């Protein structure tokens, strides 16, 4: 069970969180201007790297905040470098 650093509540058990997939996939500024291919890329395409991965978590059973962490998908080691920035930007 991972210990996930919520930027508001501190490290908490993984079971309090809900996973939100890859981070930094911004909603396109002008969706209507995109081709079907470009829109499909936003909707359905996500990275699945072996190694470092920026991903979103929601502290569902806590403060309800969404935040970003970087996790090594091979070791589950979490780096809390940019999470606070991601929430408050």
């Amino acid at each position, binding site marked *: *069970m*991972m*210990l996930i650093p919520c930027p508001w509540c501190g490290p908490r*058990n*993984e079971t309090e969180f*809900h996973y*939100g997939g890859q981070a930094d996939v*911004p*909603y396109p500024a002008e*969706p*209507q201007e*995109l081709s*079907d291919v470009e*829109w*499909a890329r*936003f*909707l*359905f395409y996500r990275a699945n790297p072996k190694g470092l991965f920026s991903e*979103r978590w*929601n502290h*569902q059973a806590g403060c*309800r*905040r*969404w935040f970003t962490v970087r996790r090594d998908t091979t*070791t*589950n*080691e979490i780096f809390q470098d940019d999470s606070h920035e*991601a*929430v*408050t*930007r």
Partner: protein
Amino acid sequence: MTGEYRLAEGGRINRDRPVRFRFDGHEYEGFDGDTLASALLANGVHQVGTSIRYGRPRGIASAGPEEPNALVQIEEPFPEPMLTATTVALHDGLVASSLPGQGRLATDPDPARYDAINAHCDVLVVGAGPAGLAAALSAARSGARVIIADSDTEFGGSLLGSDEELDHAPAGRWIDRVTAELRATPEVTVLPRTTVFGCYDDNYLVAVEHRGEDTFTRQRTWHVRAREVVLATGSHERPLVFPGNDRPGTMLAGSARTYVHRYGVLPGHRAVAFTTNDSAYAAAVDLHDAGVEIAAVVDVRPVATTLWTARCVERGIQILTNCAVTGTSGTDRVSGAQISPVPSGDSAPTVASELDCDLLLVSGGWNPAVHLHSQARGTVRYSEEICALVPDRATRGVRTVGAAAGTFTTGECLRTGSEAGSAAARATGFDADPAEVPSSPSGPVTPPQPTWLLPGLSADSDHDQFVDLARDATVADVRKAVGAGMSSVEHIKRFTTIGTAHDQGKTSGLLSSGVIAELLGVEVAQVGATTFRPPYAPVAFAALAGRDRGDLYDPIRVTAMHDWHLAQQCPFENVGQWKRPWYYPRPGEDMDSAVLRECHAVRTGVGMQDVSTLGKIDVQGPDAAEFLDLVYTNKMSTLKVGRIRYGLMCHADGMVFDDGTVMRTDEHRYLISTTSGGAAGVLEWLEDWLQTEWPHLRVHLTSVTEHWATIALAGPRSRDVLARVTSDIDLAADAFPFMSWTDGTVAGRAARVCRISFSGELAFEINVPWWHGREVWDALYEAGSDLDITPYGTETMHVLRAEKGFPIVGQDTDGTVTPHDLGMSWAVSKKKDDFLGMRSFSRADTVRSDRKHLVGLLPPADSAVVPEGTQLVELSELPEPPVPMLGHITSSYRSAALDRPFALALVKSGRDRIGQTVYGHVGDRLVPVEITEPVFYDKEGNRRDG
């Protein structure tokens, strides 16, 4: 009680406390401190069952959790399947039986209590042998919060099974002193009988504590988050592969030594020891000194070590070097061992002698218990030196010491344990020094000679050479796998099932790697080992469940009116964690007749339903209108204060995922409702967009589901009932129009009343603070009693809405359905620049003409209800498969108003097929169904104003 197998003195058993127990129908006596296995051995019982595939007699092979054979079924005090006799603590009243194969679960509920506890510590020490105790002592003296856990009933580990001395005194004294100091240290938690069985991410370890039959809680699961972990889990002795190596009386040498020293039990009277290393000599010498005749020590090595040779010569024990046991004889128990010189090359071994014995000790070396290290994602490597897997790279915050790290002398275990304990405490910020450790006389340990398969044996003997006793898997099975072209140990494990039994290959895992290596002609290191997975030892589901069963399995959410529903003895439907009344049967009614009556009442009179479970979210802020325009498909910013609009929410892919009503309660404030089961998901979804995409929007969200108790009052007489309990609300249709709300007083309580209808009838939704929910419910019920006001449940609500063609998200939709598919294009704004899902409505896939549409279905009027989930096909007779499917039925009921069955369905190009007949595949029949508009009742909407 002493007998031919119990020594007159010695051991750590309590001879003042005899214990009576039954095994396979026979009464026996043992002592407090015995395991079931040691007590059976003390009574001369070696065979404890038969093997799973071949039904061969099998005996007790070890003295610990690595036991592959001695599986027992506990009958009393409470049935438990598949425990190893070597780990069952003997207690009064124990009744057990041998278990060939699968165990039997209890049919009665377990009356014992199981519990869970969470703990945090600086240093968790797993294992309380010499290394673990020394580690715990070092860490504890620094003031760090320490937990030390060990599977065994008492601390000491390997020291309990030997006569070793520490500081020139029996080791027990040091164990007792350290244990006492640990117990007396306030920040230390001492956990005997506690098996740490899982090591997960970020030093989250799970253990089960066996607290005994007389305690308040029989077993307790510990969830420990440790900053640092010291693994001092010891090692398991490895058996040897040779023909007839499964006969009862064949026992790991170290285990036999344990039976002598710890339990005062002689596992036999005349023993042969077959070994590849020094440790079996210690067993042979100790057994000899305890009165067992040692027929010979058979050593595959060309030369025995000087020290052990001397000790054997002193005692007259014969050593046969460069020899192997190449066969055994006996029926239910070993009676003799065939000894051959180790054959070289392909020449068949010649039996030089046969030695009579009733005990055959074996030792193929020792496997460090690297299970937890490996579970924590530490890597292991094969050590040529000790012929076993040892920890290689460790995970952060995990240290392995002692025999678990391949360190086999007591002195080194003590020293490295002490150092690891202080290093772990230092890593957590404590000023720790290694505690001083006692002196140990144990000398150096010479490495074993790698021995996996004896050369030169005939292929016939493959079937008699067992690699995994628990799975009855032999060299023949491995040879078959290798012959089929397998070379990966993971594949061979699955093909042969080696290592998949209750013991998870504690004795057979590496042994099989060695055999595979020999058969493939490669190094063992190349073959490697299979993955170590939790649990380290079997754990009862009851322990994992703890108190989370029955009523406590999951939170139960009930409404303010729940007690009233209970009093009606209505069945409940589970909606998420909510309990919702399903229908309210009157005496003699079944579900169908109750629902028909309830539907009829709402269509012709008045009904009432508790709809408090609908999710409610308070949306506040200057940008609330803009926000809701983005998340609903229709426009909410144009909604006037006082009005209500139905809304659909879609994911960005354009698929419907929730629906509900939106009330504008103020210029900057809305109250939105969600489906009962979807409330939490919708809130998380809205928060996601607010926090990560539109943080500039000044909007705040609060769940107010439990703030409002909500009562739906529906039917042509609903206005009459409400009028009797309110005086400050004008209920006339023009003063209080459909899809509007007003505040007022209902039954003397402040209420917010809405004109919303989910049935098509004139209806009101009365919201009052939760606290007043029951009171207002009672008042409405009372007020409508002369009109036969009829409480109705979710089933009637479903029928009534289906008659109106209103879909239920999650029942009539499944995440692949757009608003257009539902025929709800009217709820999709064409005036907005963007909203979630909008772009997807013009994707090639969503504009296909053959998408599935929500349509109505009419089976023949006199037919039965066609089951939900029924697949629909084009033709009245099934063609050869594959049969093209048109869609399926999503909702299906009998209608009181129509007096016939009807259904909703998702059908390919459904709206273009209206009027056509398709066929529902029910059992082995095809039922004709006519495709219709989805609205069956009051298409014009004449009834909503009453």
